[in-house]
């Protein structure tokens, strides 16, 4: 349904920021996929680039095929039709999608008349119904409220209502619950889950919080330093994480089920995004580092391929031959961009001990 190839995003600045590096993946219709990584790893830049919502000084290259059209080659008018109609977006801060001087009802009816061609009366009725569906109590009355009169959770519900109103095929939710309290976060995730399942909407759920994707997604892609470094089923990412970064991330999460003697840290920091990295970007922090890591940036490979490639010193070209073009997608196997993936079944402690 959506097919992204070799996506690069660079912010032009005195020192250009290499935000996204060669990202490729496929999304199938109706799938819920998590994009996880710490801040600055390129999640938002990569997602906003799909519908070209980045500022002018962002250079975007690659291919983004949605229903046969390359979104990176559409003109502004065609793009506007895609945003909203085919792709809905929910941001972390609901205010960024709302106009503070218009009532919630007015904004919803605008979306409905624009994308569904409803008349004024019908649009208003539909707006109230939608608000009701997303769990805003007394929707009939609240529809005349302004955004600031809504609580944070209710505002996010209204934004979700606007994003799903045109029944988009793809919903990009960029940290939709990060600004919310835990009790509200759980409700919003449930709501997203419900709405997207009902209409078989594809959802790309972006978050820095591994816990958020556990209940809502089928697949997860982990980003580090602008790259996808691991891709697997959600289940695998929790039980058989195979990239050292993902493993370290799991272990550094404080556990709610037990008190630990001491928190496990990942020493060091992610690389400076203005510097070209030679070799694997995680190498300076990686406990599994081997010689090859310093020179060659590992591509996404299956785990057996990664092991054999490292052991036999295969070059990139022969890896591609052996492993095929490995692109994260609905049917792809567990992939890792690592020359020496720790063995979750062996002595190397994986996340599940």
């Amino acid at each position, binding site marked *: 349904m959506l097919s992204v190839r070799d996506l690069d995003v660079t912010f032009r600045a005195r020192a250009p920021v290499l935000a996204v590096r060669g990202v490729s993946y496929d999304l199938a219709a109706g799938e819920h996929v998590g994009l996880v990584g*710490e*801040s*600055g790893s390129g999640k938002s830049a990569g997602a906003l680039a799909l519908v070209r919502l980045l500022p002018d000084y962002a250079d975007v290259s690659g291919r983004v095929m949605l229903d046969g059209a390359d979104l990176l080659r559409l003109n502004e008018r065609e793009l506007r039709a895609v945003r909203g109609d085919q792709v809905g977006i929910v941001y972390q801060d609901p205010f960024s999608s709302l106009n503070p001087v218009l009532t919630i009802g007015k904004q919803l009816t605008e979306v409905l008349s624009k994308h569904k061609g409803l008349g004024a009366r019908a649009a208003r009725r539909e707006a109230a119904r939608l608000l009701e569906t997303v769990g805003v*109590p007394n929707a009939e009355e609240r529809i005349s409220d302004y955004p600031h009169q809504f*609580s*944070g*959770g*209710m505002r996010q519900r209204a934004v979700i209502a606007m994003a799903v109103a045109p029944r988009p095929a793809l919903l990009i939710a960029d940290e939709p619950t990060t600004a919310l*309290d*835990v*009790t*509200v*976060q*759980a*409700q919003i995730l*449930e709501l997203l889950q419900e709405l997207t399942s009902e209409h078989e909407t594809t959802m790309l759920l972006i978050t*820095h*919080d*591994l*816990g*958020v994707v*556990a*209940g809502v997604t089928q697949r997860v892609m982990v980003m580090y330093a602008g790259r996808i470094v691991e891709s697997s089923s*959600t*289940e695998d990412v*929790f*039980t058989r994480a195979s990239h050292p970064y993902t493993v*370290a*991330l*799991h272990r*550094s*999460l*404080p*556990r*709610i*089920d*037990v*008190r*630990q003697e*001491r*928190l*496990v*840290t*990942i*020493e060091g*920091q*992610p690389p400076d995004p203005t510097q070209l990295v030679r070799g694997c970007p995680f190498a300076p922090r990686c406990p599994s580092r081997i010689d090859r890591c310093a020179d060659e940036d590992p591509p996404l490979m299956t785990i057996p391929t990664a092991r054999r490639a490292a052991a036999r010193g295969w070059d990139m070209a022969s890896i591609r031959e052996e492993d095929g073009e490995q692109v994260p997608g609905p049917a792809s196997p567990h992939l890792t961009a690592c020359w020496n993936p720790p063995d979750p079944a062996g002595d190397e402690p994986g*996340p*599940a*001990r």
Partner: protein
Amino acid sequence: MSTEQVVSPVLVEVQDLRVWFPAGRGSSTKTGGSIKAVDGITFTVQRGETLGLVGESGCGKTTTARAVLKLLDPTEGRILFDGVDLSTVSRRELRLMRRRMQPVFQDPFSSLNPKRTVARIIAEPLVIHRQGTASERRERVGELLDTVGLPPDAAGRYPHAFSGGQRQRIAIARAMALRPDLIIADEPVSALDVSIRAQILNLLSDLQQEFHLTYLVIAHDLALVRQVTDRVAVMYLGKIVELRPTEDLYRRPLHPYTVALLSSAPIPDTEAEATRRRIVLEGDVPSPADPPTGCRFNTRCWLRRKLGDPEICTTQAPPLAQVQDHGASGVVACHFPEAVEDSPERRETLVALTGSRVSSPDQELPD
């Protein structure tokens, strides 16, 4: 302090603290009422312990912290620091007190002046409190940088040259400059990346050991709170609803709101997430300008509904009462804590948390 004096274990005592703000324009209370940000809370912070303050945004955590730091004046109630009532001390004494308690804020980007060198930022409290000569201060800055794990050459650089985690180290160094007894940290790691959080928390824990610090830590991540606190106060709408030793709270929560919070916490485990049933709190937190009568949690309480809406929940505010549970201690403010204890909701919540695959085998299951 003379040596023969018995040192009280209590460093901070907050008695029936109220902080009300005048309700601004556009508020729904026509009576010109007040925002009851903190509305009658009582707690102590023991010397050397870490007390956690948790609750959803707007429940009054930051206001409580600011009152303890005397950055604002209480509407009612008293705050005693080391036995001295902060509202009655002279300006001079207050200055001395202030040295002994230092804040660390959430956002290391806005809390550090971008135009000052790190050395100047860290030395600032020393300058304000006229401590030492310039060269002594320079030496102290060097010491502090080392204490928080920053290289000596950080002194001459500006905040923008540092990552979020490093900036929080700078903020901690500044807080440590006057050798305080109490550090009040308001969401000290929530602006930081997951992979950096543990570094800062471990640093805080090392400093506590080494310098016998007392911490009041505000946080909303319940997993993190379990790791770093000795006791936890759960706040809701300006009140403390439960205050317990940390392990007691997580193993045997007794307030319906605490159970709901635990039930909402995301678990990094697909199976636990797939099978758990969450307690969904309906509606929003009511406005602190117009809190519900009786128990403040009554508009959203799952237990009240289960019990068939007992009248007492809407007529009488439950006092913070001693926990009556075999061996457990602490206080809870609910009329029916024993009903929480027996509820399947609590059991299911605890099983979801402890039964998650990440749990260690020796972990006892709740009964």
